């Protein structure tokens, strides 16, 4: 049947004629050049066509497993003559028989049938192939996704000394597999959503049934279902859409490239959101302590990891307060320094043309500039930027007498401290807050620093991440959660999941001594 260039109404079901179907697909996609259509006759003579998108679908699979199978195989018990006898009407029995025959012949694992056009189109556009057979009511959808994707590599932003080297990729399937490989629990759930009016991205909510609080899962699902946007732009838009307080600079959802981090979080009773097309997956709900914790803490001896966590806490405070304190002490509280330090600082500042405030803002801004430039540059030049920034600018600024050597030390220590924070998103927030504290310090001195600190604290205790207080085991005091907070107790003592998450299953280990009776 020819359609003479007339636009076709979208039918609810596929047409009986293969040619109609193909015409409809061509028309609705605008005959793109990456649309692959192969029409052929099956062994019995029925007309058939396979439709897929070039580049997204694996042509080998379609050729070897679909086309060659259908062309070669014969011996059907339904024939065309039988059908013609039945008054030319395409009856149900015949159609069902044809389907059964077709699907039987395909030695494919991933195959399903559908008669919904929306579904068919989406499937074709996401890389699968659709098989249309003349006079068959349903379309066979063949899982043939096979595009070029990045191999699993070590996470770029969160590398560890000890720990698995695999990181998430842009491919959702790979990512779910990475988690599944770590948790073989039958209760691990992946619930799929399709988000984005136009981008139609796959989003998967991962949790472990039986551990996680069901109310949390319901809330996550509810919030995800509210997302109505052209394209969720990686996981960023989803994170910003569903977080509790979008005015706050503090991230309320953790993003990570590490599958072990997500797996660990799921086992604690948290929820993961995996988004197709980005290696950054989301963990929620989180507390502020999550930002100073690294998966390495669990791989290492508990004493080491406790000390390292303490170090990271100090790093947070240094990155936050050091330049502010420098300003406050140098501008207002000269008596607070030990005498010798005060004299030597005063000596090094001799001849520096700027007040300490200007000097500090100048150097901190330069530092941020360098860091931003370092991100933009290709890796090979990035090294150069480090040298230029660290040595040349710092050294030259001191010899030129623009800044004092102490300032360079302060800036360097601040920068190093902010790199020690495991979460990049949190480190950016700290960078931002540092400038606020510097302003407060330059206006009011230490008093201002204290005020800024109080304001920040008030803000923090008001934050919530999916109903969980942001400062959780600290501000609503949950002493049992302190076992894995700033210090981490030995494994045998971490017997319970975080209390604040109100999980269904609270215990995660049983000590051997309690089961003395069993052999």
């Amino acid at each position, binding site marked *: 049947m020819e359609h003479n260039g007339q636009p076709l109404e979208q039918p609810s079901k596929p047409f009986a004629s293969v040619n109609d179907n193909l015409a409809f697909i061509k028309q609705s996609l605008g005959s793109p050049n990456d649309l692959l259509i192969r029409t052929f006759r099956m062994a019995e003579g029925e007309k058939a066509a396979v439709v897929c998108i070039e580049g997204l679908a694996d042509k080998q699979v379609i050729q070897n497993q679909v086309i060659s199978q259908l062309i070669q195989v014969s011996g059907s018990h339904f024939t065309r003559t039988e059908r013609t006898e039945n008054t030319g009407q395409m009856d149900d029995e015949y159609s069902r028989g044809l389907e059964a025959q077709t699907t039987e012949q395909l030695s494919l694992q991933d195959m399903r049938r559908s008669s919904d056009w929306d579904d068919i189109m989406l499937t074709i556009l996401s890389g699968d192939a659709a098989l249309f057979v003349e006079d068959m009511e349903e379309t066979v959808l063949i899982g043939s996704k096979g595009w070029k994707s990045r191999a699993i590599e070590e996470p770029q932003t969160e590398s560890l000394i000890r720990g698995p080297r695999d990181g998430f990729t842009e491919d959702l399937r790979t990512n779910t597999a990475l988690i599944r490989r770590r948790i073989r629990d039958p209760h691990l759930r992946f619930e799929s959503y399709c988000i984005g009016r136009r981008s139609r991205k796959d989003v998967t909510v991962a949790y472990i049934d039986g551990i996680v609080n069901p109310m949390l899962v319901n809330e996550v699902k509810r919030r995800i279902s509210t997302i109505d946007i052209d394209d969720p732009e990686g996981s960023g838009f989803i994170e910003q859409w569903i977080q509790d307080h979008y005015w706050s600079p503090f991230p309320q959802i953790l993003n990570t490239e590490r599958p072990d981090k997500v797996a660990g979080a799921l086992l604690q009773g948290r929820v993961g959101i995996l988004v197709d097309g980005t290696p950054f997956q989301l963990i929620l709900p989180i507390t502020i302590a999550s930002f100073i914790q690294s998966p390495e803490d669990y791989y290492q001896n508990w004493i080491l990891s406790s000390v390292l966590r303490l170090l990271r806490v100090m790093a947070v405070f240094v990155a936050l307060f050091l330049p502010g304190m420098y300003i406050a002490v140098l501008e*207002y509280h000269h008596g607070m320094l030990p005498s010798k330090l005060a004299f030597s600082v005063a000596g090094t500042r001799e001849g520096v043309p700027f007040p300490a405030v200007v000097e500090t803002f100048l150097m901190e801004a330069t530092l941020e500039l360098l860091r931003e430039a370092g991100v933009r540059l290709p890796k090979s030049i990035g090294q150069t930027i480090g040298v230029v920034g660290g040595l040349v600018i710092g050294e030259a600024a001191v010899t030129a007498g623009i800044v004092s050597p102490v300032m360079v030390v302060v800036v360097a220590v601040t920068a190093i401290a902010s790199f020690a924070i495991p979460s990049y998103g949190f480190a950016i927030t700290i960078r931002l807050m540092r400038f606020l504290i510097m302003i407060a310090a330059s206006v009011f001195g230490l008093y*201002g620093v204290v005020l800024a600190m109080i304001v920040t604290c008030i803000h923090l205790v008001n934050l919530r991440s999916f109903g969980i207080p942001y400062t959780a085991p600290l501000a609503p005091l949950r002493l049992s959660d302190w076992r894995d907070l700033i210090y981490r107790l030995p494994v045998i003592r971490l017997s319970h999941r975080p209390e604040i998450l109100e999980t269904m299953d609270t215990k995660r280990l049983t000590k051997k001594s309690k089961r003395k009776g069993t052999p």
Partner: protein
Amino acid sequence: MTRAVHRRMLPLLLMTSVLLTGCWDRVEIDQRGFVVGVGIDEPDKKEGEKQGSNIQDHDTQSQDKQSGVSSKQTFKVLYQIVMPAGLSTNKSDGSSEGDKAYFNMSVEENAMATSMAKLSQRLSRAPFFEHLKVIIISESIARKPQKFAEAIDFFLRESQMRRSTRVMVTRDKAGNILNTHPPDQKLPAQYLEELSDNTKESSRILPESRIGDVHEFLLKHKSFAIQGVMNGNRNYSTVTEAAVFNGTSNQMVGFLNSKETAGLNFMEGHVKGGQIKFTFEDRLGVFSIERVSRKLDCTFGRDNLPSFIFHIEVEGSVDEVFHAPDTLKEPAISAMETGVQKEIVKLMESTANKLQHEYNCDVMGLREYLFHNHYRWFKQHENQWEEEGKLFSTRPVQMDVKVSVRRSGNINLTED
């Protein structure tokens, strides 16, 4: 104006109030004149400008003769101010050798605050006292009634002042003391501060005399002793003297020399280390003190008056003996112990003698002891203790010193 405009103005007003009121006492650290030492002298009679309460500095020497009354009250205050650039160690240019890290500037005034005001008229950098280390007061000021308290009032009252500033008295000119320092120390004031802490090395240095403690003594009307500093020469000073102050008049009555200071340290239980030279069997030996415990006891006689006994236990080692017998043998050890013991008793007795009979100042803590342990008796006799009845100077004081030689050194014999 509408509500919306009001609402829009509010942050603006807040910002202006913050930006206009903030920053007002912001001073760059390199704009501070760090005063680290203060010397208080009597003004020179012959030369130097001298003026009364007039702050205006005409810098003339003609007018000073008339103001006779005010000149009697005038202090000559010497301020030691740090030059931070001179302190920095890594100078690239070679001229750093001759760099001084400080300068002294003297001002004559009859009040400390006005002298500071006058100082700031002369300096581009505002004087800053939070790093003040030492206040040196010359003997002539300290000996005058009330002058001592007047001199340190400013350094206690002013809000920048710290209560840990050291106060010392010198026989010399305070100005001279603030000019001496060994070549390894660039700041005389810092040198003096660290020197006064060396109580672990010498038994002849009193514990450091902080201005806060001195204030306490003055309020309690308790006689006290503070470190006295002596000028050896341009390269060093010593703090092995003690200046004794009378508690009632709050004026200085005299010095204890270095041996008497050591005796006072023993009586007060402040000895932390140091050496004692002793003789036994005509040999010279040096005993090094390691630990001292002190206990004071008193017994009341039939006349209901106390007599005191100091129990001192000293432990230490023998550092040096000339022509010694075998120092591991018992007779040699006990002979050395008695030698040291006699030496310590001598030190303490000479101190007690001087305090009781010459100065009549109870610096050695008898009054304190009675106050704490025999309060009722003390209340009855409080006025007669140092004054009228002079009970203090007539009370017998006994010294009971026990010395034990813990180590006789690495060797027992130098030569056979």
